Structure formats: C-alpha cells, structure tokens
C-alpha cells in the first residue's frame, strides 16, 4: 500500500509562499483528522529535501542531517493535530520542530548531562493547558457586597479587580494591558478577593 506512493515534490503553487502555506495547512489538517497518507506524502515531498539541505548546513554531516530530517518529519506525522494555522504557517511550525530536534541532538553529541530539553524551552509540541477559568466561584464576591471596602485594596490589586469586574476584561487582556505576567494578574485577583472576603467577614 505504501510502496506505491511516490515523492510528490512538485506542488501546484510552489512559487508563492502564501498559496503554499494554505495548501500545506490543508494537508496537515487531513493528516491530523484522517491520517491521510497521500496528504502526508505531499508534505514530506515538499519539506524533506529542503530540511535536508538546511540540516546539512547546520550539522555538517549527511548522517546527522538525515537523522534530523527523520525525527522532524516523524513529529509532523505523529503530532499533526498540534499544528495551529492561527499561530503561524506550516513551514514555521516545521522549522521550529527541526530547531528543537537539532538543539537536543547537539547536546547529546556534546555529552552534556543537562536536565533541560527542547520541550521545556519551546513547548510547541505540548498541548496547551486549558485555562481552568481562573477564579473559582466560591472565591467570587459581588461588587454590591463590597461597596466601600473596595477602596481599601492596595492600588495594584484594585486596578486588576476594576479591569476584570467592572470593565469585563479577561485576565489575559489585563496582563497584556498592564504588561505584567498572567500569573501575576491571577495572584493579584486571588489576593484581592481574599482580602475583600476577610474585610466582609470582619464587618459582619
């Protein structure tokens, strides 16, 4: 079944990057959803020879270059469902996979015993953690309940609470706007809500 598939290096649109990207995205989708071997063979036919030239320059050795191509293209086959066209083009995704493979190969060759791998540094092949929508219900407090107490919050906590509960922004939007990490927004929200709760209880 596999034997008959030849390398299809010529695509209709090889010249234009945008058309090529659209075509490759579509093919990756077919690999992800149906494990379509025809589609994969086209992707392989386009990228494998290019990756080999690139890897040969980077590694300076034919055997290592082919190893890099094989590992990269294996990831493309096995993890096509992790490709997200909204985040970048297929060639960018495949380039970043190749960069990761090369990073780990070079460290292995140098025999460095480092407990850091490319998956830590560039988590492109990891599923994004679903955001467990931030603050749990029992931590939430309505603004009417809070009234004046709101003004007793430290400025930074109040700014975050205002943006989320009054302006209705998401925690990510607040993080981007204030140029602070998302984790900081979360912890400020938690601290602020906790403080408000404590104040409410003290008021009872």
């Amino acid at each position, binding site marked *: 079944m*596999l034997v008959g*598939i030849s*390398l299809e*290096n*010529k695509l209709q649109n090889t010249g234009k*990057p945008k058309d*090529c990207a659209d075509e490759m995205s579509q093919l990756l989708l077919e690999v992800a959803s149906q*494990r379509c071997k025809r589609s*994969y*063979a086209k992707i*392989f036919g386009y*990228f*494998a*020879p*290019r990756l080999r030239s*690139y890897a040969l320059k980077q590694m300076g050795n034919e055997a290592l270059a082919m190893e890099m*191509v*094989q590992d990269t*293209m*294996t990831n493309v*086959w*096995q*993890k096509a*469902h992790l490709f997200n066209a909204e*985040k*970048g*083009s297929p*060639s960018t995704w*495949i*380039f*970043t996979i*190749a*960069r*990761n493979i*090369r*990073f780990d190969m070079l*460290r292995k060759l140098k025999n*460095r*015993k*480092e*407990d*850091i791998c490319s998956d830590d*540094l*560039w*988590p492109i*092949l*990891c*599923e*994004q*953690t679903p955001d467990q929508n931030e603050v749990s219900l029992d931590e939430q407090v309505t603004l009417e309940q809070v009234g004046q107490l709101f003004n007793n919050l430290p400025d930074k906590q109040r700014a975050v609470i205002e943006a989320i509960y009054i302006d209705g922004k998401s925690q990510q939007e607040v*993080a*981007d706007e*204030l*140029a*602070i*990490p998302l*984790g*900081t927004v979360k*912890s400020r929200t938690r*601290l602020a809500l906790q403080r408000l709760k404590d104040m409410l209880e003290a008021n009872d």
Partner: protein
Amino acid sequence: MINYHPTDKQLQQFAEGNISSALALVVSAHCDVCSQCQEKVDDINAKLSSVIENIHAHEDKDPAFEKMLASIMQMPIVDTKPVVAPRIELDGRFFDVPRPLQRFVKHTGNWSHLLGKVWQAPVDLGDAGIANFIYMEKGGRVPEHTHRGTELTLVVDGEFSDGLADYDSGDFIVMDNEHIHSPHSNASEGCLVFSIVDKPLHFTSGIARLLNPFSHLFFK
C-alpha cells in the same frame, strides 16, 4: 509592569536555538509571561523559516527518502494530553509559574530557610547550571555580592530592589562580575524569583564575606 527584557540579540539566538540551555530557559520563561517579547520571537521564527522555503530542493526521486517516508507512516499517531500546571507552594501560599519552569516544580526540593527572611528551594538542572527558586519575605535581603560567572534571574511573582534597580513580576535580569548588588524585597507579599548561576556568588561586604568559603553551599 515588566521593564527588563532580553536583548534583541538574545531573542534572536533563542529563536535560532544557538544559545546555552540556562539562558534559553530564563528567556523562555520570560517570553511565556511577556507578550511583547513572544511576538518578537514569533516574527523571528517566521523569518528563519522562510529560509527553508527558499531552499531550492532537488526534485529527483531519492530512495533514502522513499524508505524514510514509508517507515514514518508506519508509526502510530501520538496522543498528547494536557497536564495540569503545577504551582509552587510555600507556607500555604501558591504561586503560578511560567510554563517552561513548571516541570522543575516537581524537582524542587524542600524549601530551606537561608539567611534572615530568605528562603531557597534548589532545582536540579544537571550540567546546565545551579538553579534555585528564591523567596524573599518582606524585609528579606540577600547579602551584597558580585558574580564569578553569570547570574540569570526571572522575577516569578512580586517585587524586589537590589540597589541598582527596582524589579517587578516577569522582569528578566542578567548580572555578571561587573555588578555588585544586594537583592531585597519591601513588597508586602514578598518576592519569588528563579535564578541560575554558573559559578558560586562572591559576597563583598561585612560579615557576609565569611560566607565566601562556603558560598558553594548557599545560593549555589
């Protein structure tokens, strides 16, 4: 707000993968919380990948590739499952940690009380460097020191100052033998940082100098 970012050169080296593991880890952790730098890295990735597109590849059939293709397509599809992000716990407080550092939370040994109001939890990175999560309570201070090598720091949560500047969550800091500083936190919530050094610190003032012979034990 985040004021201290990696240089454009460091971001370029990070995107290329031509960078030490330790520096890459701290740059990566910064980019995870700094959308501005993440966008820069995405742009660099796109530029770098256009190089691959522009390679003029041979169109001849190659038996080595035919063989490779067939063997790859026999491999099973890999299902990846999202993992719940682990958080750091210290004294009943929980801290969110940038994604690249999350795997190391599990490796974090018990917190030990260092000097005064400073806590340390070592992280084993093997040969990549000597890493710690360090927590300064309000009023906590690391004695004044300089660096025999390079000290990389990411502010995970909170604020601190070191006599050279004031830092906030997400800030990326590189210090070497040209810098003498004494990190301390006056923030009511204290400050949690992640730091990697390649050589022990060198304490420069007062009684802390007595620590030097043992500095490989502290803040290693």
